[in-house]
């Protein structure tokens, strides 16, 4: 299990390849990998968005991410997981978040990935501020539910 907060743009596929090199103990046991990648769009709530900055609460961020994973582990059978989240200045098309869950069977991986994503969105102290085309900035007020 690993979590990583980074100010640098990252390639999720490169990170996954690197991380999977550490999973030797699970070779042959992993049947399912479920991944979610959140990417910055250039349009949100009716406006063109040219950039974004993400602030967080160092320390609490990691603590709450650990808690998300711990809760998911209590609910499903998980072999491994990886969460990477950007902070700082972000431009459209860049990856904001990667969530990966490895398990023996697909139900666990699907459920846990979605659970962790929703838990992250509602409990982990990140805040987005968008830069609009009009050169104004606005805080994103709240996350929508992913289950609608």
């Amino acid at each position, binding site marked *: 299990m690993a979590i990583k907060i980074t100010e640098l743009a990252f390639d999720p596929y490169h990170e996954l390849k690197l991380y999977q090199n550490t999973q030797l103990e699970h070779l042959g046991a992993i049947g399912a990998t479920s991944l979610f990648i*959140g990417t910055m769009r250039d349009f949100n709530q009716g406006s063109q968005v040219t950039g974004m900055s*993400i*602030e*967080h*609460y160092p*320390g*609490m961020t990691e*603590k*709450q991410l650990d808690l998300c994973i711990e809760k998911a582990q209590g609910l499903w059978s998980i072999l491994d997981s990886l969460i990477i*989240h950007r902070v700082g200045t972000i431009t459209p098309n860049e990856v*904001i*978040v990667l969530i990966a869950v490895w398990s023996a069977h697909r139900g666990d991986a699907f459920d846990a990935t979605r659970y962790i*994503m929703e838990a*992250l*969105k*509602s*409990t*982990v*102290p*990140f*805040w*987005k*501020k968008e830069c609009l085309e009009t050169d104004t900035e606005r*805080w*994103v*007020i*709240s*996350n929508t539910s992913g289950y609608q």
Partner: protein
Amino acid sequence: MSIKVYYFASLKEHVGSSEHELDFTQALTVNEVWLQANAELVLPQNTLAAINMDYVSWDSLVSDGDVVAFFPPVTGG
């Protein structure tokens, strides 16, 4: 007793500061911490509170050395 108070994101802008040091002589709740630190400011709706990086309710008691944080709803992911 002495505590630290942190503010994040839009609340940091609202308060005009990212942290306060607070000294007090009697037990305080999180709500009383806010009032003592920012008596003149309207508390934005939905403001969240944490003690030592755990979410807490507004009637939780604060202890010496605690770090209290106030911030708006989170919007990561």
